[in-house]
């Protein structure tokens, strides 16, 4: 089935960021953000404005540029062009980092250290106050009992949970989570999302990268990303409606200009949505 060009009105990828309501302006912004590794454009001209207190889902296949985008926004990489702003400050800016929570995709824990030592170490560096914050973070991920256990003895899911606890222990206003629920069992996953929602309600801006579509509906807004470009953005409901499907995965494929089996749409000259905005900048 060929679905033809999708309307881009809903999701003008690459358009100027939409104005964000609220006094503070966007918590996270990207303007013409690009990052090249040699000839590969990992992030290829992305514009974003993430409003405070909302959960954004960054969805796309492996190698779509999700991690690179997060690293640019977190100031861990320097953009080739354009700029990233966190809470109004151009990144990279070290002074801003205390207000950022970052959960990398890799484990990023010290295996020789105990659970408590790991979180205590990062809590100090991130400027978290007091043992109370550590207790709360560990309780949330249900690791309070394992405080003295070396990370070496933890299962993969427990390590993921500890990693999450570390990234939220200092209660940052902005939270970047790179695949936070990989290896976490379904029950706890629900708790995670409940907590993410609680944080968002309290004003935290959360950007969650994932390639798992079934979590997407928990986000306020989704960004479909592929080959370093934002293909579409909107709520899950909106994106499904636009793509004419009730399956988010199918919607993603259609926005990518692929058919429902993931094969390129033949031939029709119908440019995929993203290409309408991907011209030279």
């Amino acid at each position: 089935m060929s679905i033809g060009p999708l309307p881009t009105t809903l999701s003008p990828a690459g358009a100027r960021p939409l104005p964000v309501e609220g006094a503070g302006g966007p918590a996270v912004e990207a303007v013409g953000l690009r990052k090249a590794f040699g000839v590969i454009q990992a992030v290829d001209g992305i514009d974003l404005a993430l409003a405070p207190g909302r959960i954004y889902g960054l969805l796309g296949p492996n190698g779509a540029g999700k991690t690179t985008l997060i690293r640019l926004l977190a100031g861990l990489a320097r953009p080739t062009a354009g700029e990233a702003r966190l809470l109004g400050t151009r990144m990279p800016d070290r002074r801003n980092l205390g207000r950022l929570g970052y959960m990398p995709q890799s484990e990023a824990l010290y295996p020789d250290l105990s659970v408590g030592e790991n979180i205590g170490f990062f809590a100090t560096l991130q400027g978290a106050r007091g043992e109370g914050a550590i207790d709360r973070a560990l309780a949330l991920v249900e690791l309070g009992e394992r405080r003295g256990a070396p990370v070496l003895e933890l299962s993969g899911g427990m390590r993921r949970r500890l990693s999450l606890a570390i990234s939220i222990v200092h209660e940052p206003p902005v939270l970047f989570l790179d695949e936070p629920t990989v290896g976490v069992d379904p029950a706890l996953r629900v708790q995670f999302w409940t907590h993410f929602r609680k944080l968002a309600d309290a004003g935290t801006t959360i950007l969650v990268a994932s390639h798992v579509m079934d979590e997407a509906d928990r986000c306020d807004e989704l960004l479909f990303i592929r080959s370093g470009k934002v293909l579409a953005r909107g709520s899950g409901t909106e994106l499904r409606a636009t793509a004419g499907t009730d399956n988010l995965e199918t919607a993603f494929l259609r926005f990518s200009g692929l058919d429902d089996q993931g094969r390129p749409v033949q031939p029709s000259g119908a440019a995929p949505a993203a290409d309408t905005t991907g011209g030279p900048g």
Partner: protein
Amino acid sequence: MSGRRVLAVARRIAEGFRRDRRSLALLILAPLVVVALLGWVLRDQKQGSVEILIVNDAGPLGDRIVAALQAGASEANDGTTVGAAASKDAAVDSLRSGQADLALVIPSSLQADVTSGTSPVLTVITEGTDPAAESGAFASLQGLLRTVAANLVPAGAGAPVVPTVQRETVYLSPDADQLDVLAPVFLGLFAYFFVFILTGISFLRERVGGTLERLLATPVTRAEIVVGYAIGFSAFATIQVIVLTAYILGRLDVPTIGPIGAFTIGLNVPSAGSPAITFFVAFLMAVGAVNLGIFLSTFARTEFQILQFIPIVIVPQGLLGGIFWPVDRLPDILQAIAHVLPVTYAVEALREVMLKGSDLGSPVVQTDLLVLGGIAILFVVLGALTIKREVA
């Protein structure tokens, strides 16, 4: 720079060590084992028994020489034995089979040479595959030949007056053994070697495991990370250097307890200078090694690759740093290289202090300490600079 964050990094290192006992053991025990072995080998070498075979082609005059040599050997009583072989070929066979260490051929022309006043030529044959051991055997033969002169004097005639040579030294004592001279420099090299490997691997894990990325997403600065690392590892390097210095300089006699016989711990190497300065030099080396480890971890992707730096970073320092051969006897190019290696300065300073008793007033020690401190700071800066470079 925030002291709180620096201390947090340093404490993290300490907490890691507390659980990683094997690395701690490597840092503290490994140098002790190596130095103890070295001390044992150098101090307690067996008095080699040297078997000398004499091929006498000179008849009765030769017999007198053989008798004199045998008398000398039994007088010296140092394990040297003097035997006879029927022919040169028989002697060579014995050398080949390992029954003899050295053969001395007394030529048939001996009588004629002595009569005509020509200096006779004695031939010494050795196996030739182990120059060091053979020069030892050769030395004991020469020692024996010296006694021969006295034994050859005909009965009743006055013995020739041979002066006794007495040896004195400016530093140490004439009895100083190889260990006394080598121990100080091994102290410097080991402080470097083990600390370098541990920090290199530790920081590599930080890069590969993603924790460095997480660190860089916090307000901690690169300088705080490097300084925290330097403090954390230097604390353990300090323990290592203290233990090693104590083992080398000290001596603890343990009396017989039950079935265990009395034994001695420590090498009791004499140090002419202050142990405090000795410690300080080794400490500076260790701090330099911490930061070198951080710096070089940039160029490795796996722990195995860190080990591959040993032949590049450690071995040349061992060869060129003045441990085995004096720096000023190296070829010009190698001398230039030696002068940029920290070990060269550490060895020089440790020798000045431990062997010659120099203190901080000595210009040589001052220069060495300045250079070592400069190198340590240089590597701190290089280490800090490499931290973000890899971030794409």
